[in-house]
Structures are given as C-alpha cells and as structure tokens.
C-alpha cells in the first residue's frame, strides 16, 4: 500500500463524493460563499477517508471483508452525516449514505471490471 495508491483512492473518492456533499451543503448554506461550501464538502470525505482506507485491510483480515466493509463504511456514513448535520444539512444521514454508497460503487465497479 503506497502513498500513490492512497492518493489515487482519495482522488477518486473526492471526485464522486465532493459534488454530492456540495449539493447537500449548498441547499443548507445558500447565504454562504461558494468556497465555504466546497471546502466543507471536501472536509467531509477528508475526515473519514484515511481511517477507511488504512483500517480496512487489517480489519478484513480479522473479520472478513463484508463485516469490515460494513464497519468502516458505517463509520464514514455516521461521521460525515454528523459533519453535514452540524452545517445545517437536512436528511444528513441520507446524503451521507448516497455519497458513500456512490464512491464505494464506483471503486468496486472499477476493481471488478478494469483492474
């Protein structure tokens, strides 16, 4: 696991989750500057991605891939939902679920079909 592979995964996550988080945040923060919305959206994934990416392999070794994935992604959904809720987003849990499920889906499709 190299820094480059982490950067690639982080870039892919941000590419998928950033627009979704930004859309949720824009509705709740219409009066705020655009940079604030995008920065807050970036932070949502940045808060959880290192934990998810770094802990998944060892957790999968101990628990099996399905429980480990459920655990780390559940953590990501809850933490990002709390972040969005704190910034006034309605249905923050649903937005967070959509964002994380989308990024997991894109990464898994790429691994299944391309790599």
């Amino acid at each position: 696991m190299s820094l480059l592979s982490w950067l690639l995964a982080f870039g892919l996550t941000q590419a998928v989750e950033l627009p979704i988080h930004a859309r949720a945040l824009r509705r709740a923060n219409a009066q705020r500057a655009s940079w604030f919305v995008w920065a807050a959206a970036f932070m949502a994934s940045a808060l959880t991605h290192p934990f998810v990416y770094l802990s998944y392999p060892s957790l999968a070794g101990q628990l099996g891939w399905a429980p480990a994935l459920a655990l780390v992604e559940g953590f990501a959904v809850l933490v990002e939902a709390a972040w969005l809720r704190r910034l006034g987003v309605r249905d923050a849990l649903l937005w967070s679920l959509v964002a994380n499920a989308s990024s997991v889906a894109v990464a898994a499709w790429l691994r299944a079909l391309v790599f």
Partner: protein
Amino acid sequence: MTKLGPTRGIALGFGLSLALVPGSALASEPPQLLAPAERAIFREGPVEVALTIASDEWPVWLEVDGEVRAPLAAWPPPKVVLEPGMHRLRLLERTRTHASSATTVAVFPPKREQLDGRERNGVIAVIASLLALLGATLLRRRGL
C-alpha cells in the same frame, strides 16, 4: 641423487598440480539456471519467462521437458515461452555434454482467490449501487 634444478622443479610442480586437482575442476562447468528457481507462475498461458543464466561459455542450450530448444546467447536477455502446465528446464553447455540440475516451472491459470476478489468487488459494486440509487430516490422524493 639427482639434483633438482629450476626446470625440473617447475615440471614436477606442474605434474603434481595436475595429479592432485580433481578432474571435475578441470572439466568445463555446466551453466547454471539461476532464475526462475523452482516456482509457479499464475497467469493465463502461454507465458514468456525471463531466464537468468550463469555460464562461462556461450551459447548455452535450453532443454524444456527433454527437448533441446534453440541455443541461447548472453544478449539479448534469454527468455522462453512456456505453455500452461508443469515444465522441467535444464541448461546444457556449448558442447551439450554437461547439464545443469533441472528446474521445475509450473504455469497455472490465475489463482482462484484472484477470481474471488473480482467476484467480491462485483457483489460490493451491485449492493453499493443499489444503496446509492435508493438513497438518491428518497432524496428526490423529499424534494432535495
């Protein structure tokens, strides 16, 4: 007693050396196949395998499953194409009288675990896509 002069001394020393050095050391050494060592290659065949050969003399001859292939030169780096299955590789030196010990190389299709990984990612992709679609539909219904 005959006196031992320099010429006789050198001749005697040379003769003794020849008599004492083991015969195998004077014979030409067979080439050694350093890589691949005994191993398995998990790829769809046929596969091209790079060979690392230590030899004093070139060309050397590669024998695959008892069949001698074309001679190998030191350059370009020698390679061999192997079909799926188990293969015994040996090297013969230039005169083809001495052979290296045999190396076994097996070419198998990709490991089952790799296929499982692909299938697992497919399962994750389908479930995550369904979750994302369900969430997006709920958000849309709520007018978000």
